[in-house]
């Protein structure tokens, strides 16, 4: 059976979301169609507003609505340490530890030849520029423990070797293949403490 075109379009768009299969997309579509009109519109507005106002911070490339972002502008943070993560969500997870006082750099992905993602598709050049422009003592590689996260860490450690800057990798307190934001704060803190030189 075919749905009317607007419903089919909604189902198709929803099924493009990560973690949403065809069945879930249908369920979500009918949930949205049964909402009071005001609520459905609020969701639509939230999506378009976020999409319009949020951009990358020109320093750390985290999502922000002001540039540079609050973390980059804060006078309370240590400029000499940069923690490198794959995704903006990883910054949120690390901030929950309330222990890390340095700066961040968001790569927006990990090296994955199968998906056609190389270093040039990540914010790597921007990281090198940051390191050239300011005095940094330590770069902490906090990419995920997925295969691609590990490969990205190895890639960066080799790339940064000539700079003489100390490069460390957070320890594996994190389950194999696990994402940073699924890991509780204590585990993350342990991982941060146990970082080692690569």
């Amino acid at each position, binding site marked *: 059976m075919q749905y009317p075109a607007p419903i089919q379009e909604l189902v198709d768009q929803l099924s493009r979301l990560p973690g949403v299969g065809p069945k879930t997309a249908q369920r979500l579509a009918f949930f949205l169609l049964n909402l009071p009109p005001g609520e459905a519109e609020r969701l639509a507005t939230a999506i378009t507003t976020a999409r319009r106002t949020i951009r990358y911070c020109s320093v750390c490339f985290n999502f922000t609505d002001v540039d540079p972002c609050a973390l980059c502008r804060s006078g309370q943070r240590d400029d000499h340490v940069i923690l490198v993560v794959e995704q903006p969500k990883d910054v949120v997870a690390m901030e929950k530890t309330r222990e890390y006082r340095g700066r961040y750099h968001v790569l927006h992905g990990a090296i994955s030849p199968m998906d056609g993602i190389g270093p040039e598709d990540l914010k790597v050049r921007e990281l090198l520029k940051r390191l050239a422009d300011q005095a940094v003592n330590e770069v902490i590689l906090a990419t995920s423990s997925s295969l691609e996260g590990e490969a990205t860490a*190895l890639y960066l450690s080799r790339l940064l070797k000539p700079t003489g800057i100390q490069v460390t990798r957070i320890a594996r307190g994190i389950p194999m293949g696990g994402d940073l934001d699924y890991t509780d704060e204590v585990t993350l803190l342990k991982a941060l403490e146990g970082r080692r030189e690569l």
Partner: protein
Amino acid sequence: MALLSLTARHFRNLAAEEVPLAPDITLIIGPNAQGKTNFLEALLLLLAGISLRGQSDRDLVAWGQDGYRLQGPWMGEGTDPVEKDRLVTVNPLRRRESGPRIPAVAFAPDDLLLVKGSPEGRRRFLDEVAGQIRPRYLPELRRYQRALSQRNRALKSEAAHSVVESFGPLLAEAGSYVWSVRDEVVASLCLRLPDVLGALAPVDRMEITLDRGGHAATATATDFLGELERRRGEERLRGVTLTGPHRDDLHISVNGRAADVFASQGQQRSLALALKLASRDILEEVSGRVPVVLLDDVFSELDGTRRRALLELMSRSRQQTVVTDTDREDIGDMASLRYAVEAGVLRPVAR
């Protein structure tokens, strides 16, 4: 010790109904492509976390569904039943399993081609045993295969050499673990083969060795990496990784000669059966549990002697056994529960 029933949801063509199982022998009869093999596959996954013929979880989900679920109560030795549960979602791929790992051995007609067939079939055989004796093995193997795909893709594309190099240590780390466990499995099989073979084909002396893929001197990550370094130019040229477990083979010889070339078809089937029987013994010894035996349509493929050997295996230690066949009178008498399968639905049939 037995799985009391199986309920499969959204798994291949199987209907979502609880199917009670006998503690000894359950027989499932039906024409091909009705769901017999799917039922055994579901059992093997739920019990041991192993898939038949190396199928990926993605391919097992019923059409148009987001995942599948297998459940059944496991009755251990003198305890209350424990619920075994395997839940898989495919977008993204996630697996959740609960309950004890139960060793299981599956026999299918393809297994009789173990000696004659492709190296891939022999690697799969090793993986089935390795995955059950070392819980870390299958996750490491998956990680290895992912590292291999990534590295091969990087070799084929114009990706910077440094990207290829970044996957090397990860490949070597997972690959050397895979090698070490495969070595262990081969050594254990060697110890048990003489006994098992004695019952099947008393005259033959059988030897097996693991031929490691590539020329690494040892199974260590260091030698693995050294080989990657040494064959760098060749790999670039050919666009594939030339060293590693993905090129392993199990070399089988009988009376000092390569079995795939020099053994008769009957001998080859005996050797294949012997390997399977030896693997069953290893699983029992390592886990302390008698493996569940799953026989998928193998009786028609065997002659009298080998059928008797298999029947003897089935009755030994009275372990739980599930047998499928297109039509078989002689096993019918041994089975406590009988089903007919049609379009994924199992219906009990009277004796």
